[in-house]
């Protein structure tokens, strides 16, 4: 195991770091204090995911034996119990590292239950997709009540599912205009939601969701000959917006999105125009090197500006 105590002492003696900070860092290097916070959170998250997977298998295997009403009631009760626990903890003003994940379990079980009830009892009839909307609202309200970004991401995913966004990579290659329109609409709703809501800690979740949805929409337009140029243009415009947002906010991820998605959009269109293999490969070499240099320079400038 490595110990950087020597360097910390040197920096402290040179006045680069103050003695209290140095003492804390040295204690960490000597492993006098080792926090297991992250590991225990991950353990709890793993437990939640196992339980949710178990519920999924239970539903699929025992539907005939147990009966839909019993399954729906049992999952609903479990979800309510988790919600009740979360409310009780919140009202009591107590916190535990498992709390976030008990709330996540409540939300996932609610998703499973509502989806299952709709699939079995057809309560919404021909507009069955509206159960996603119900879930989006339920998870959205829960996210704001408990300040949970994990649950907020479920709400956005439910909203996307309601509008018809499928979470499969293949849809980028076979859905074309229909998928693109759905992705743009969802991205727009998420962007508007981000603008009208006040919670600062939620903004990154909205930003990343809106950016990726918009880019996926643009890329799906590249799949068809008729819309390829439009997809390239839209992709480049989004790349510009993403780079501008990333530069302004100092968020590197949006600059990476801009270069990677933007390069893909341009490459697909240009390679379509070039009919000769040698020209295509030559172009790909040049464009990829240009993207590497561009990203490298942008990153270096962002770091310099941040310093």
């Amino acid at each position, binding site marked *: *195991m*490595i110990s950087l105590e020597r*360097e910390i002492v040197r*920096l402290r003696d040179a006045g680069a770091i103050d003695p209290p900070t140095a003492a804390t860092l040295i204690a960490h290097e000597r*492993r*006098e*204090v*080792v*926090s297991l916070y*992250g*590991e*225990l959170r991950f*353990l*709890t998250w793993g*437990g*939640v*995911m196992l*339980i*949710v997977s*178990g*519920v*999924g*298998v239970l*539903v*699929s*295997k*025992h*539907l*005939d034996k147990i009966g839909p009403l019993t399954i729906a009631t049992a999952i609903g009760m479990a979800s309510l119990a988790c919600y009740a626990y979360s409310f009780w903890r919140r009202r009591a003003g107590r916190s*535990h*590292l498992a709390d976030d994940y008990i709330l996540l379990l409540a939300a*996932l079980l609610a998703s*499973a*239950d509502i*989806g*299952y009830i709709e*699939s079995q009892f*057809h309560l919404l009839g021909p*507009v*069955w*997709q509206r159960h996603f909307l119900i879930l989006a609202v339920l998870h959205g309200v829960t996210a704001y009540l408990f300040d949970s970004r*994990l649950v907020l*991401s*479920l709400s956005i*995913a*439910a909203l996307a599912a309601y*509008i*018809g966004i*499928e979470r*499969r990579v293949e849809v980028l290659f076979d859905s074309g205009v229909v998928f693109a329109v*759905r992705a743009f609409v969802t991205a727009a709703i998420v962007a508007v939601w981000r603008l009208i809501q006040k919670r600062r800690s939620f903004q990154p979740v909205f930003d990343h969701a809106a950016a990726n949805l918009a880019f996926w929409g643009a890329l799906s337009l590249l799949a068809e000959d008729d819309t390829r140029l439009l997809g390239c243009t839209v992709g480049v415009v989004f790349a510009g917006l993403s780079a501008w947002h990333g530069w302004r906010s100092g968020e590197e991820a949006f600059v*990476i999105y801009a270069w*990677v998605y933007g390069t893909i959009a341009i490459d697909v269109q240009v390679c379509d125009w070039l009919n000769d293999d040698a020209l295509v*490969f030559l172009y790909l*070499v040049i464009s*990829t090197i240009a*993207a*590497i240099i561009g*990203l490298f320079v942008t*990153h270096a400038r962002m770091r310099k500006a941040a310093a």
Partner: protein
Amino acid sequence: MKWWPSVDEERLDALRPGSSGWRRHGLVLSIVFFGLTLLALAAFNLLVALTNLPEGMTTAVVAIAVAEWLIHRRRFFGTGIESALWIGALFAIIFSLPSSGRLESLLVFVAACAIAGFRVRSALFGCAAVVLVLSYIAVKADSAWPAMAFGIAAALVAAVALQREWQRPSTERLIGMVMIVMPVAAEIAWAVAGRGTAPLPFAVLAALLFALGIRGRDRVTLATGALTAGIAAFEARELFRFPLEIKLMAGGAVLIALAVAITRALRGRKTGFVVEPSAVTPYDEAMQILATLPSAHPASAEPATAAAAPEVKSGDDSSFGGAGAGGGY
């Protein structure tokens, strides 16, 4: 001429990234640069293939020359670019060689990963070399035991090696990565062979890792112990006759109970192992969000105008998995 950062420079960078003057990137950016560089190299290799030049060797010479120029002149080390150039160069040579179809060709890839890993001090390539050795043993031996034994032994040796103090952070990263990956590689080799269950070796390894982790107060060793215990539990699944869903839910409940119990046991402690909130990086949270989403809602969703309500299949072939999540309605 400096071949790579000195020990002092590496240690300084570990404390204050970028302070040594060597250019390096964070994990995500390195992955992006690595991918882009490999793409450029592949396109260059295909371009050379259209000429009369020997494609693999030409690509390798150009890539290594560029990588060395970047390292020596531009002080790139850990940007993702120079490592992609080195591994891409060596793989380009290998792929241009006539295929003999012999298992020993795996050892050529081992050598490529080891050489590239040594040159750019990459834990990933070094670990890939060890995994490829395990793969070679797995396909060469008649039994699955040698590969599993190698994987477990490699993880244990790495865990013991991690107990001593290392000077270079890159060396420690290599040892740590070997320790984490090898139990998983051993389990995959065992599972692919399909020779029944073997929870005991993994349980013993997990116990040893926990002991070493507690003794050295090392979180990485403890996390590997937890991972290996999970593998042992997975291997032990067929020893119990409970249905799969009960095993999954009981396992989940045990994990949560364990986390709660450890938190309670460590509550109030100010030294040694503590549960004081430490910074959870945005990447940690992003990974959890991305891993949770597939379990959230049905993957297949029709637009709101579709007429028919979804149906859930019942029985073993049902796709209604992940709590209503994975379900193909």
